[in-house]
């Protein structure tokens, strides 16, 4: 009897992706948009070092697979450009600094998830993450768990929330307890119009995302 129950559970686990698959494909199709695409964003950073979150806003520019620019204009200015494995960061009027993404796997994961989402590339997404879709067409949640254990040391999970064909939030959680919530599209525009309270907590932010 117990054995039968285990088999049922195992079957359910195996079958789950297959059942969610059609949803995932149509979801990814909705999310995909032709490059170049821009979206305003508002990022809320929670960290175990901070008593209240840091909130920054700016614009993201997606200009094709593996190419992304992030410009922060409030409360300070910072410009980050990622092309392939190359990252360059300029803060204020300072000198640009370059890195290789191979030295920062979490950034690479972030970028590849982002460009795969925007490019509608399911194959690329599934090569780096295990995917899980929940919710319904109106309010869906896409969970991405990195497959690579080295990446998991820096990024434990990425969750994308959205409504209909548009993403609202992308939540990146790190094993050290820090969480970054990025509001996109409609959610970002709303947050820019009526600024979020400075002491906003995770629960309140969840509401904004859904």
């Amino acid at each position, binding site marked *: 009897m117990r054995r039968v129950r285990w088999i049922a559970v195992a079957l359910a686990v195996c079958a789950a992706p297959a059942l969610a698959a059609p949803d995932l494909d149509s979801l990814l199709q909705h999310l995909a948009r032709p490059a170049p695409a821009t979206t305003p964003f508002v990022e809320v950073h929670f*960290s175990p070092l901070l008593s209240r979150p840091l909130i920054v806003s700016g614009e993201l520019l997606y200009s094709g697979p593996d190419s992304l620019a992030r410009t922060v204009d409030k409360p300070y200015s910072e410009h980050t450009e990622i092309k392939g494995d*190359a990252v360059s960061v300029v803060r204020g009027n300072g000198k640009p600094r*370059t890195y290789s*993404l*191979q030295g*920062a796997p979490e950034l690479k994961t972030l970028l590849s998830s982002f460009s795969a989402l925007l490019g509608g590339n399911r194959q690329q997404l599934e090569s780096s993450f295990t995917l899980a879709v929940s919710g319904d067409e109106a309010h869906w949640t896409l969970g991405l768990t990195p497959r690579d254990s080295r990446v998991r040391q820096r990024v434990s999970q990425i969750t994308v929330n959205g409504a209909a064909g548009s993403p609202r939030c992308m939540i990146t959680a790190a094993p050290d307890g820090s969480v*970054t919530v990025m509001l996109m599209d409609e959610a970002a525009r709303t947050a820019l119009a009526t600024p979020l309270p400075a002491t906003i907590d995770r629960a309140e932010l969840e509401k904004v995302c859904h």
Partner: protein
Amino acid sequence: MPLNTRLRGSARITALLWLALLAGFGLVIHHSLRISGDLRLFMPAPHDAVGRLLLDEVSQGPASKLLLVSIQGAAPEALAGTSQQLAAALRADPAFGFVSNGEQRLDMVPDALLPYRYLLSPTLDTHRLDADYLREQLQEREQDLASPAATLLTPLLPRDPTLELIKVLEAWEPAHQAQQQFNVWFNSAGNAALLIVQTRGAGFDPADQRLAIDTLRRHFEAVRTSPAMQLTITGPGAFAVTMQSRSEADARVAAVLDSVGMVLLMLLAYRSMRRVLLGALPLATAGVCGLGAVAALFDSVHGITIAFGFTLTGVALDYPIYLFSNEQPGVQPVQVARSVWPTLATAVAAVCIAYLAFLVSGVLGLAQLATFNIVGLAAAGLCTRYLLPQLLPMGVRDYGDSRLSMTLARLSNRLPRLPWLAPVIAVIGVVAVISIRGPWWDNDLGHLTPVPEAMVREYESLQQALGAPDVRYLLALQAATPDALLVREEALSRRLDALTTQHVIGGYDLASHYLPSSAVQRRRQAALPDAATLRASLEHAVAGMAFKPGLFAPFLADVARARTLPPLTVQTLAGTPLALTVGSLLQQREGGWTGLVTFTDVQQPQQLAALASSNGQIQLLDLKQAAEDLVNHQRQRILASMAAAAVLLILVVAATCRSFGRMVRVVTPMGLSTLVTLALLHGFGIALNLFHLIALVLAAGLGLDYGLFLERSSADPAAHRRALHAVTICATAACVVFAVLGSSTLPVLRSIGITVVLGVASNFLLSQLLIRRRDPP
């Protein structure tokens, strides 16, 4: 008949016994022999402090253990990634000391020494840890936490909110370093990631270096991400490995060609397999005895000694040839040996005396070579005198009546009598030597262990790209204690900074750059605020910011610790990654401490010389000049000992000949040949080095053999023909052996080969022309 059979049987047993004895002795030597690849054995012995410093730097200095590595053949991002992974793998491997690829490494300063960052960083020289400074820094950190790279900084922040550790590491980066891409070093074309790797093994031990290079390649194979990626390793160690494998390969080819050539020549000359085999006996005896003597007298034997030693003892083949050629029908071999012995003994003694010159040359490798040859040749001479006659059957042929000897004798008799020849050759030789312009001596130390031009160029381009220090100029300072030295270096830094802004030098590096003197450390310590003040400033600075209250307690604790720490010293650094860097610039020697200042891109060396001469405690080392002085000094010593050996040699010949006239006739062809060889080499624009001198001595030794053999028999036509037979075979054999050497790709082997071939050919011709058969009265 029964007698003959018994003799043959006992001869065979004696030969086998002797071979067994040699083999056993060889086995013992093989077990006790320590072969070293240390190329210093062939470098000149230093005669002053600068020379000692130079040789230390060349052989043991950290620079000699550096391998410069480049990775090519993929996109820069991929190369950078592989560079990081390779560096991580090498750092974890005990075969390597310090590994650097341009990445900033937080673990350069171990955890226990972290509070020292405030004493090492120059921040406190210009700023105070007050509320304004802290606030400015904390605002930066907030922005860092809101950036995608936040997780990298999170662990560091509570302890080090001013990122003092990163500032210390940035200050330690070389002034002129390679360009950076993706956090690692790249060449200026941007298509090769560069690393500097220091091996633990000695730089000039090819065995250690080969191991390190193989290990490095294995790590690369494990981390490369594409098969198109290529690894290039260069540096002194890589040179040593390449040179060793090339010499070994060349020596192997030469040995095979020589053996085949000798067997054919001996068969042709004596038409007797027995004599071919017996001729090898003195050679084997010479090799085993020579090697045994070197193994017994020296701690370790250089691979080059062994390779050259066996080549040079090839001369020992002359002795059995001389014995065989003098055989006569119906004469017991023992009797033949007895009759040729005075000449043979003189020949052996003369060559041994020539080698005495190297025994006192002050170069350990040459002393080993000399020991090898003196003992080996003496043993071969004795073997020819006492062993070979026992093994030879009663003579049945007179080689003097062979077709070869008759032809040679006819030719020899047809040679014109030219009494004026010797003075004319001498005059032409001297005029040529004096009048032809061109470099006489090759003073470049590097040519003693020559490295192919392409490898040197590859090394230089990498060295330039990495901003590795200039190899020619160094400043040296002395002081009684490390701290006194650091104080002196700090004063010097101010003047060197001025020279850098004037573009006299591109940059410089010295120990106080990494380890400030205790005075400076105490001054920074005094500038650190006390616990209460710092706490108040921090509270003021952090007001209104998002940081959790109490977050920076580890920072407060570190500053409090830093206020009471005893200053960091060379001793406390031991065992940290920093010790390697400081240790290369600050060394204890001869009761004091020496500090070295290295430079990049020296534009005006005369300005550095002026700086050094204005301060009695600073010395400018021009390593190129020092190396040339060293070679020069070494050559003078070798030339002096060669002159002494020449005098001794003439005395020995004179003693054997018991006549001034005969002595002159023996020595003249040899002396003239040496002059002719010198003039030819000089005329072809070849600058002479140590190995040419070795070869000249060898050729002179061979020439002396020919002179002695021919002169002794000049009164008797039959004996003269036999001597002609012997000398012709000896000279042909020597020419074959050294022509093979002369065709080597290695400059050292080539210079020896060409010199000996020239010398032997000239000796043979001149001895024919000058040592005429005296017509019987």
